[in-house]
């Protein structure tokens, strides 16, 4: 909800700025590009700095989840030049031919992205042709060490009733089913309806124990002590631990989701040069560090990873141990039938 408010304010602001700037025509820009991203996912200073350095104006738009980003993009009322979204949504957009091919050599700063992340990105962009990695992370459990009795290392704590009414689930379809599917030992990318049904039974039985289904507010509820634990994205987990020293982050042993958000330039963009300039800019050492500090997710840029202090390097949310990322899965774009099936299950779960 918070982000929707921010989003609204931002669109009004953008509108006002657009009206003002076209109305008076006082300031001349080299070019204008429209960028689409998740909320709170870039340091606002970075965009100002970019405009200052290059004279390219940035219109900035936000959406809270991949699905909402996709819908808004597909509605087609705004011509986006550059957009950032998550693995399975990128895969879908690439399949639909929405992205332009990029020549990475033209963007010299992309060389600072370690091979490990380019390989990772191959799961949705097999030839690393369309997208440039931005942030990556995992999904784990953020919990209050003063309130738990016993170790937190398994999704089991969310299903065994031990913490009934004290935990929060992600209010996002794929993440909710991911937890149940991995707990049952299935792939989170399953297209098998029997496995999905089994996950559904588990989640339906769990619902009474769930305190709430939240996305952005989940972290704050645990920080404020309203909930004992929550399923959470690693970056939010890291920031939660910064706010409240009693919190810790766990990656369940049954395996979890490892995800990557990347940038792509739209195939229809009329400002590809400028968009590439921004992409290159985002990969620059100082800018990537600024964004890392603001956003709190793991960066694929070498220098950022080197610059982290020891505490950050030891943090499981920021730098997940390799054995955990190896057992983790990346979301694949599901077939239209499975997506529709899962949508129905999700609706049933939420309505129950």
């Amino acid at each position, binding site marked *: *909800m*918070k982000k*929707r*408010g921010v989003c609204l304010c931002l669109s009004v602001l953008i509108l006002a700025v657009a009206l003002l700037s076209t109305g008076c025509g006082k300031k001349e820009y080299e070019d204008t590009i429209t960028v689409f991203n998740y909320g709170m996912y870039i340091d606002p200073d970075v965009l100002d700095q970019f405009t200052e350095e290059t004279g390219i104006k940035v219109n900035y738009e936000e959406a809270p*989840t991949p*699905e*909402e980003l*996709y*819908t808004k993009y*597909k509605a087609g009322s705004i011509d986006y030049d550059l957009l950032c979204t998550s693995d399975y949504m990128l895969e879908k957009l690439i399949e639909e031919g929405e992205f332009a091919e990029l020549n990475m050599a033209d963007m010299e700063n992309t060389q600072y992205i370690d091979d490990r992340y380019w390989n990772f990105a191959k799961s949705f962009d097999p030839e690393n042709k369309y997208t440039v990695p931005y942030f990556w992370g995992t999904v784990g459990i953020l919990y209050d060490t003063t309130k738990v009795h016993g170790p937190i290392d398994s999704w089991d704590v969310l299903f065994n009733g031990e913490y009934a*009414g004290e935990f929060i689930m992600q*209010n996002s*379809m794929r993440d909710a089913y991911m937890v149940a599917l991995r707990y049952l030992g299935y792939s989170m990318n399953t297209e098998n309806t029997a496995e999905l049904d089994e996950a559904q039974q588990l989640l339906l039985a769990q*619902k009474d124990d*769930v*305190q*709430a*289904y*939240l996305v952005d507010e989940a972290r704050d*509820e645990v920080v*404020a*002590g*309203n*909930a004992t634990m929550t399923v959470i994205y690693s970056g939010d987990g890291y920031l939660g631990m910064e706010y409240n020293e009693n919190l810790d982050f766990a990656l369940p042993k049954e395996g979890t989701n490892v995800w990557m958000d990347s940038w792509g330039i739209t195939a229809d963009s009329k400002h590809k040069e400028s968009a590439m300039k921004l992409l290159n800019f985002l990969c620059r050492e100082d800018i990537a560090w600024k964004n890392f500090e603001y956003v709190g997710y793991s960066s694929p840029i070498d220098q950022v990873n080197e610059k982290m202090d020891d505490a950050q390097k030891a943090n499981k949310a920021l730098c997940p141990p390799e054995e955990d990322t190896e057992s983790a899965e990346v979301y694949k774009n599901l077939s239209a039938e499975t997506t529709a099936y899962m*949508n*129905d299950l999700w*609706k*049933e779960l*939420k*309505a129950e």
Partner: protein
Amino acid sequence: MNKRTWLSFPYVLWIIGFTVIPLIVIFRYAFTTGDGGFTLENILTIFDPIHFKALVFSLEIAVGCTLICIILSYPLVLAMRRLKMGKSGVALFIIILPMWMNSILRIMAWQMILSPNGILNLILEKLGMKPLSIANTATAIMIGVVYDYLPYMILPVYNAVAEINEDIIEAAKDLGAGSITTFFKVILPLSMPGLLSGIVMVFVPSMTSFVVSDVLGGGKLQLVGNIIEQEFTKSANWNLGSGLSVFLMVFVMISMAFTLKNDVDGKESTVW
């Protein structure tokens, strides 16, 4: 007459651009499939058990909210009338004041109040009572909608009650009516136009709301509004979302027509 009709031009333009065209678009989506063929399925999907359940829940919330608002507003309005508080405008001002604040902000304040470690439980704890768990329940949603829409009931009811001539009430009393009889036989019927517009202004938005249930229901309870929102923003099924919207619109129109038909003295209420 003719000379001034051009003045209405901006309004006609407004109505066409922001009411008529969007309605046509919604209806078009509602009656077509993704490929553009005609279908009734999007409308009839309301009878799907999941959607129907959300509809019933929305109805419970809307009816409950309207009733609670009526029960809360009459004593307040009568007190304001008796104390002539409305004249100075202060009392009305205090009621309107919170409406100038963003409603999402106010609902989030309720979230703070009702959450497990919230203000309410803090107070209860200080008083040595057991904490309540209202957050993320239907009760929380009900509190939210009542709080949000109560002013829309108070204002029209107050306007209607304030207009009742004191002589009529005194005449009723002279003829031996007690205060309860006076209320039901005189004040209530005479304030009916205000009450009806209050009902419309509370029932309709609480029936179609989705923000309150989203924030105070913790994503565990769904009103029809939430399902429509989800169809549009997440599932990208605009046809189904439009179909449900059209059903809801017609449903609300019918129930409003039914309410307004009972308008006793046929006086136009302020909304319609």
